[in-house]
């Protein structure tokens, strides 16, 4: 609308030549030639990979020309009605807001959509859904669990724990041997949220189900509701506090970077971080032997689960003017070899039924859980960003009252529901 008005005014006030140029420009776009599309991908470490891939795609065919965009502000793009034609990025609560309001188009007619594992596709719907559409295609899953120093475990005769009691026993063994059991970086709230908190909560309750009930309760969430942060999460969070006690003494002033270096130097046995930390640790010590195991929070080994997130997911905005071209490129990106190659390089897990298994020793410990669908999305990620969840969790980990802080989360949740 805005543009059209501007154009007509220009035609009147400016010379005919300008009007002609605009007209010709319009014709050129309609009559054949390659369709130009923008591809948004801003995961920093993966940019070179997708730059190569885009180049290859552009060279192989002449119908679609893809431009890689690694920097634009997505919200602003959607707001102006000018989003990228294809997006490939982390899928989270924030992205779900676009989907929920119908900003992403339906991709269910693509053959690749059939190949996605239903339990992985289900992860998308846990945040929000749009009726009758497959708006988002999971591209790569990052599975996170406890990273452990294999040598320290072997030296101290500790096996990978599968129950809460074994975990506590392992911590005590390390402590007695003068080794820090868990390296924590409480200075950065997100690291507490995605680590200790998500692992203890995800290991004890059905995270997605819990938030479904909270959503339904809305403004009713509080001291009197059957389901609430205070009631439902009390036990897991108290276990989290117990584990936090096994951390390095200076945890409160350590950052994520400090933690990676400390783990690389073998200063602690366990580290609550995702696969992204493995690459960072390797920068300091590429030969360190590390493994992963799901954090046991109950006494039943069958409860073991790993934390996952949709590290990369594909979508095509409804506002795209080149949807067909965009889908062609999406199909190219979703070719099985491309997917497998990406996951092998970036320690991801495949999202399709015929995905190749992980090969990296460090994440092999999570493969069986992932294959069996024993996973959850982090509890800290379900809360809208306007509630400072990670900060609350950080203060619990560093000594704040569990009940009072969880009550505050309940109150925030109800307040948000009131004005939402």
């Amino acid at each position, binding site marked *: 609308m805005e543009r059209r008005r501007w154009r007509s005014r220009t035609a009147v006030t400016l010379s005919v030549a300008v009007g002609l140029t605009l007209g010709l420009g319009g014709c050129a776009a309609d009559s054949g030639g390659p369709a130009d599309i923008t591809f948004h991908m801003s995961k920093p470490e993966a940019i070179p990979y997708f730059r190569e891939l885009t180049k290859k795609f552009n060279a192989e065919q002449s119908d679609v020309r893809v431009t890689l965009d690694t920097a634009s502000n997505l919200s602003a793009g959607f*707001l102006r009605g000018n989003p990228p034609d294809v997006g490939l990025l982390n899928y989270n609560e*924030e992205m779900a807001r676009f989907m929920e309001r119908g*900003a992403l188009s339906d991709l269910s007619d693509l053959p690749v959509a059939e190949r996605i594992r239903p339990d992985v596709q289900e992860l998308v719907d846990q945040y929000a859904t749009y009726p009758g559409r497959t708006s988002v295609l999971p591209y790569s899953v990052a599975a996170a669990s406890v990273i452990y120093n294999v040598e320290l475990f072997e030296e101290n005769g500790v096996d990978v724990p599968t129950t809460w009691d074994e975990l506590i026993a392992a911590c005590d063994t390390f402590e007695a041997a003068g080794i820090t059991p868990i390296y924590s970086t*409480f200075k950065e709230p997100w690291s507490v949220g995605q680590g200790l908190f998500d692992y203890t909560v995800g290991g004890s309750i059905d995270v997605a189900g819990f938030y479904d009930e909270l959503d339904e309760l809305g403004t009713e969430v509080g001291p009197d509701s059957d389901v609430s942060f205070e009631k439902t999460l009390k036990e897991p969070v108290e276990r989290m506090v117990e584990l936090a006690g096994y951390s390095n003494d200076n945890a409160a002033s350590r950052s994520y970077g400090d933690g990676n270096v400390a783990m690389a130097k073998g200063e602690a046995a366990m580290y609550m971080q995702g696969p992204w930390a493995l690459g960072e640790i390797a920068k300091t010590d590429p030969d360190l032997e590390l493994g992963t195991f799901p954090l046991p929070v109950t006494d039943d080994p069958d409860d073991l689960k790993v934390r996952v997130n949709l590290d990369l997911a594909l979508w095509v905005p409804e506002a795209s003017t080149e949807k067909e071209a965009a889908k062609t490129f999406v199909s190219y990106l979703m070719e099985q070899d491309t997917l497998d190659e990406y996951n092998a390089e970036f320690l991801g897990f495949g999202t399709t039924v015929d995905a190749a298994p992980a090969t990296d020793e460090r994440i092999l410990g999570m493969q069986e859980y992932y294959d069996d669908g024993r996973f959850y999305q982090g509890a800290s990620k379900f809360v809208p*960003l*306007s509630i400072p969840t990670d900060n*609350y969790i950080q*203060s619990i980990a560093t000594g704040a009252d569990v009940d009072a802080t969880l009550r*505050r989360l309940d109150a925030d949740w109800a*307040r948000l529901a009131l004005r939402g």
Partner: protein
Amino acid sequence: MTTTASPAASTGRTAASADRAPTTTAPPTSGRSARRRQSVDRIYYLFLVPSLVLFTLAITVPALLGIFYSFTNFIGFGDWEFIGITNYIAVFSDPAILSSYLFTFGFAIVTVLLVNVVAFLLAVGLTAQIKAKTALRAVFVIPMVISGIVIAYVFNFLFSNSLPAFATAVGIGPLQESILANPDLAWISIVIVTAWQSIPGTLLIYIAGLLSIPGEVYEAAAIDGAKPFRQLWSVTLPLVAGYVVINVILGFKNYLNAYEVIVGLTNGGPGTSTRSIAMTIFTGFTGGDYAYQMANATIFFVIAIVISLIQLRITRGKAALA
């Protein structure tokens, strides 16, 4: 606002209100324009046009839009509807927002006091007849030219690593843990860094003020038998009163908007203990809480205007004294 433009007030105007003159005197000119039309060249109005247009487009329009959206449930894009004053009611019952106001005002008051006391004493020292005066002044001004976020990250490292290491070596118990990690003490680190960064600017204004005092008044005071401290109290301070007011007003206004130093030091933590109002408002953009935080911003805007008006009034009183 309009009273500022009255002739009576303008005679006793200090530098602070003179600073505001271009905006405050603009509206009444229409009343006087008939008398003055011939003597004022049109070109002066043309000079105003670019800044007027930019100000309207970049400040006034977005501000009005923000106020408009504060009565809706707009989340930044997509559909929205009017929800009346629901956002405002929610703001007043939100402990996170109330605590951010408490923190920000407490922080601003403490910082204003600290900055002005230190800067004034430094200025007195640096305008006295001491050696290497110019070189020292240059040294003290250095923090002013470094970006706030850089300073904050440097101090973040100092507070997290160097200070605890030093305290452990020397044996100062309470400082052996990073003060950034202590919810009760983290605000002190923000005061220190903000003061370190803003003392130079305040110092420069004080130096200018002290240099503007003629030497004769000190001679007269000395002849009357006033000792240096008495001179400072009874001669220097009253004569730089206007400068004190400028520094307090500008400083207070800046500290209420505290953002980058906090982001670099504590990012609002530990927990939510050092979240400033500006940081809370900004979560509206990242957290899809746009309309709600616009309501918060509108309230903050009104408070800021009230404070400005009170300060302007005090300024005029002070100026009459001087």
